[in-house]
């Protein structure tokens, strides 16, 4: 029955491609979370009268974020080939897709982090200051925990964008389900392979969404 519906599908290669996609997505999400929060914190804290009030640092960070957020992902991958080769040693394979994925997604996420941080009640930060908290304590004990539900729902949205980026990266040789759909599904006109790749990608997206919603909901004590 399954062989009848999907005559051209090589299940082993689907499994392999799925693992590649999951690997790219998960690693990219983890680093995007980290770098996005760092960039978001800089964007927020360098505001006038905020903890690190610094116009120049703010301008540089904002320019970096806006630039990399605006470059279409497919162009970004190509642009970053020399950089990727330098740090990964190759521009092919799933690991080679990571720098572009992270550099493409972190600025996007950084803006969400910035918005989440702005939502925090100023009074709470003030209360922490009035208790003698240092900047470090304010960041790790107030800003991040208080905005965590928003940070998690932000990374959920970003992770879904990242899954679709991995598919695009596949086209230029990163492997994964996008690669499978393009090489086999499109170039050999095996539509059943395209269909199965789509289904698996959707399942991955749903899984991320479900997980993100659950965590965010659990963290939200408001």
């Amino acid at each position, binding site marked *: 029955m399954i062989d009848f519906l999907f005559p051209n599908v090589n299940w082993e290669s689907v499994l392999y491609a799925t693992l590649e996609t999951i690997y790219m997505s998960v690693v990219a999400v983890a680093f995007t979370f980290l770098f996005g929060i760092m960039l978001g914190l800089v964007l927020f804290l360098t505001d006038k009268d905020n903890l690190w009030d610094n116009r120049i640092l703010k301008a540089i960070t904002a320019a970096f974020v806006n630039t990399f957020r605006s470059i279409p992902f497919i162009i970004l991958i190509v642009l970053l080939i020399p950089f990727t080769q330098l740090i990964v040693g190759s521009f092919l394979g799933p690991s080679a897709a990571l720098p572009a994925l992270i550099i493409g997604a972190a600025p996007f996420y950084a803006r969400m982090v910035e918005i989440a941080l702005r939502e925090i009640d100023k009074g709470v930060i003030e*209360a922490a200051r009035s208790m003698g908290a240092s900047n470090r304590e304010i960041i790790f004990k107030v800003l991040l925990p208080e905005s965590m539900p928003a940070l998690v729902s932000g990374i959920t949205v970003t992770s879904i964008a990242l899954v679709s980026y991995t598919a695009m990266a596949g086209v230029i040789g990163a492997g994964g389900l996008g690669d499978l759909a393009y090489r086999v599904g499109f170039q050999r006109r095996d539509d059943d392979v395209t269909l199965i790749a789509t289904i698996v990608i959707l399942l991955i997206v749903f899984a991320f969404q479900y997980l993100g919603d659950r965590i965010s909901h659990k963290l939200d004590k408001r």
Partner: protein
Amino acid sequence: MISLNQLKKVFTTKDGPVTAVDHIDLQVAEGQIYGIIGYSGAGKSTLIRLLNRLEDPSGGNIQIADWKMDQLSEKELRQARQEISMIFQHFNLLWSRTVRENIAFPLEIAGVPKEERMERVDELIDLVGLSGRGDSYPSQLSGGQKQRVGIARALANNPKVLLCDEATSALDPKTTDSILELLVDINKKLGLTIILITHEMHVIRKICHRVAVMEEGKIVEEGEVLEVFRRPKEAMTKEFVKQVTEPEETQEAAGELFTDTDNHIVYQLTFVGGDAKKPLINDVVKTFDVTVNILQGKISHTQHGPYGSLFVAMEGEDNEVSKAITFTREQGVEVEVIYND
């Protein structure tokens, strides 16, 4: 304990400089509950925020206990702030932490080891009357309970001074009273100096020892609460005093109310605390040959004695009436003719 000298704060805004605190001199003795009252925009919050340097002064000096607040380095300032706590109108609790964790927060900052922290938190929870609610989140508490958490948090590091910025303004009258009682309680128990900001005179009346009246960044009047209530000098202060002594109706309305009756002269007796003898009316009627008819009034008894107004009609021989009035005044009660036909 606290001494301010020519303290000044000017904000630079797009509309030009705004002087929020204008050369203020102020002394607060140790263990006092000191009230600062003023209308919105008078500069009260700015003044209290200058004390713990949430705002940097534009000029002048701030001395709190042994700290010269205006000359401290960042590190010393953080140290000093552990001894100068603050509570807020909107509580400012961390919603991601339980009651227990919120109270533990300043202890974490002070580097108190975990075990000791937990012990201290339990003590504080009992002190503010929140036993059994330690594992609740702030969102599960009422306003009054949230402020209790705020107070427990503020007391965690055994501060010398407690700053309260409109700490009861978001609460209903009953809850306000219970929070004020708690403040008096900790003031007595711990000998804590409390600076309290408000725009409600009854808060001052209930718990403060001294009061300063603020207007446009300046202190226009200052003194013992009883003294200020009895002899308010500034127009501003008089208005505030009326908040507690006037019944709902204004004098004019009350005057009109009495024109229909056959009372010839209506007096307003204003009680502003002190040791006015309790059976005053009784004494007046017994001692002098007058009749007293109480028309309307509201008196409440407080720590400082009775507060409020009585509207009375007094009949009798002119000179008996005037002796009765002199007697009443001697008891520390103000007398004013508000209607005379």
